[in-house]
């Protein structure tokens, strides 16, 4: 495969700047590039006109125009059933259990790097490329490493921590080597019409970024009022559904008290929101399940590394101990205030993302 023209790369296109530049870079590098877009979700507008942001007809047209401009074939695949059954149902079910899910992690696990990757390979592709800010580096001993994107502000390795060797050897992240401003400049250089589009944020299947509205439409049972309880057991008010809250949240609790209150925990069995003062917050340990190790090798000994507990969190130094049944435990050097069950705990060695799992709830 010395000649790039003999190497077929399927690029997942969203119509946005990042994936468009990724596609254009691959064309410039001489690969045999095919654009694909997944039609993941189309929310009915009967409830008030808020379309989902991803894979709208406009974005489809944008992606198709870009594919035409850079001269690659472009196809839209119907992914709605599998996306609904795995990601949207997961998102709702996690909220039902009062977790704070990260659907992007699951989408990469089940949709992009399984369903789409398989479709790409079936199309005789050698690689699947996406517009993620991350890097794949092949080490001297032939192992594929997942690295943070050069632009640390944009780094998306957190949501890619579910990938293993079988994925990474078929994966390209063409823009991971660039800072975001350079990606915008590249879009201009390639004459891509998305050069001035604003960055996308939040979950792709939410029209307005408001997951609370989404849940109240698609899973109204999740929004069931219940008691707001102090850590000493005193009931001080009523909440309007546990899904409205996440650990460490201070604003919008709807109770008045003489000192600022924070969400300490949720108790889905009693449908109770447990709040406390700043001193009650903070926790220096967690356990995680469904753990993936990027190298496919399970570490045998505890080791020191850094752990991110949210997509936008800073990696914090900790001691990591692998546990049986694909679990791990983390003890941080310093307590953290917002460890939320359902989010990913992703392990780093500097820029090197070595794996991660889903944070469990402490069974008190």
């Amino acid at each position, binding site marked *: 495969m010395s000649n790039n023209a003999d190497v077929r790369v399927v690029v997942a296109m969203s119509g946005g700047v990042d994936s468009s530049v990724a596609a254009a870079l691959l064309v410039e590098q001489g690969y045999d590039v095919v654009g694909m*877009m997944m039609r993941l979700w189309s929310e009915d507008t009967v409830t008030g006109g808020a379309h989902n942001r991803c894979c709208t007809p406009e974005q489809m047209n944008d992606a198709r125009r870009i594919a035409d401009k850079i001269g690659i074939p472009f196809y839209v695949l119907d992914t709605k059933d599998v996306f609904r059954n*795995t990601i949207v149902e997961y998102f709702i079910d996690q909220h039902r259990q009062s977790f704070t899910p990260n659907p992007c992690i699951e989408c990469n696990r089940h949709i992009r790097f399984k369903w789409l990757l*398989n479709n790409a390979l*079936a199309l005789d592709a050698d690689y699947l490329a996406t517009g993620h800010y991350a890097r794949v580096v092949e080490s001297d001993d032939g192992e594929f490493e997942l690295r943070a994107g050069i632009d640390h502000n944009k780094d998306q390795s957190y949501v890619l921590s579910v990938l293993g060797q079988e994925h990474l050897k078929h994966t390209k992240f063409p823009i991971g080597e660039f800072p975001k401003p350079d990606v915008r400049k590249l879009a201009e250089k390639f004459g891509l019409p998305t050069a001035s589009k604003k960055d996308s944020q939040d979950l792709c299947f939410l029209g307005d970024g408001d997951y609370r509205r989404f849940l109240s439409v698609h899973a109204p049972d999740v929004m069931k009022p219940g008691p707001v309880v102090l850590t000493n057991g005193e009931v001080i008010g009523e909440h309007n559904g546990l899904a409205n809250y996440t650990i460490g949240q201070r604003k919008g609790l709807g109770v008045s008290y003489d000192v600022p209150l924070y969400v300490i925990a949720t108790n889905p069995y009693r449908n109770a929101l447990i709040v406390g003062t700043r001193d009650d917050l903070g926790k220096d340990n967690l356990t995680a399940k469904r753990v993936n190790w990027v190298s496919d090798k399970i570490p045998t000994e505890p080791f020191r590394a850094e752990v991110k507990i949210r997509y936008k969190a800073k990696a914090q130094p900790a001691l990591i101990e692998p546990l049986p049944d694909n679990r791990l435990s983390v003890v941080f050097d310093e307590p953290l205030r917002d460890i939320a069950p359902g989010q990913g705990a992703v392990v780093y060695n500097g820029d090197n993302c070595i794996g991660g799992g889903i944070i469990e709830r402490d069974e008190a």
Partner: protein
Amino acid sequence: MPYFSEIYGNPSSSHSFGRKAEQAVEDARELVASILNCKASEIVFTSGGSEGDNLAIRGAALTRRQLGHGNHIITTPVEHSAVSRTMEQLAVVMDFAHSVLPVDDLGMVDVEEFAELCKPGTTIASIIYANNEVGSINPIPQIAEQAKARDVWLHTDAVQAAGQLSLDVHALGVDLMSISGHKFYGPKGVGALYIRDGLNLLPSQTGGSHESGRRAGTHNTPFIVGMAKALQLAYDDIDTRIAHYTQMRDRLVKGICSRMPDVTRTGHPENRLPSHASFIFEGLDSSQLLMHLDMKGIAASGGSACKTGNPEPSGVLLSMGFKPEQAIGSLRLSVGHKTTTDDIDYAVDVVCEVVEKLYRLNRETLL
């Protein structure tokens, strides 16, 4: 093509440039009329099949209601959306009574059922000549006989039939018939509507008195000339073309069915468009199938031309009694007058390989 450059005049102008263009348009009209076996004055040039369908149906329904003939209109569930949406608009927005004549599992209407559905006050029926998705040919002459006996105007959408079936409007017995240039190797974006002498249609598009006041808008001279020429070429050796289409199509069907005995064929096995083959691969998603075929150089269609990845199961197939999960896996292939046996054999190989691969892939990635 002098009509893009030297002969640029507007056919409606009285100066010499205009007169030359006008002559070209009128020659084209006579040519089209000769193939449809009608008078030149019975031909109106349009922007294509959709416009012809709109003008015929809406024009007839509104005129006849105005004259007190009635308020009832009839169509089938296997029409092109240019017909079905026009009918729906008449029903929903303009309060027409709208009946849908059912089709059988081959996608064809029954003459007796049609006759029974007509009642006093039925003004216009639109029955597709040959369906674009499944290829079946409707018994238009027999339907026309029943329509005539009941004073119902009959329109047929002959877009898919043009270039393959007889367009003799007297043999067909229709009152209105639309065709589109691009279905017989003519230009895209031009068509013709046959309007039987004496029929008065309220124009869809109002304006100048072009086309005897039936269709306002400056003539697209080069496209009209091109369409007429293409129609002439198609019908000059129509028997040769039909024989070639049939031979290629039958080879394609035989090849696919012999290698994949489980495939479902849709539409009538014989009484169908000679160039047209249609299948259902149950459990496959046609958007996926079309992508793989395109990557191998085969341009095919699914239910209808849908590239949004948001496939609704084809209404045509549902109305024939197929289940939604079957309808999603539809594939139609058509042959052309330059298709060779090598092309067919390649297509058979590719279709069979891709279908088998996708069945395997779906089994492996079932979630």
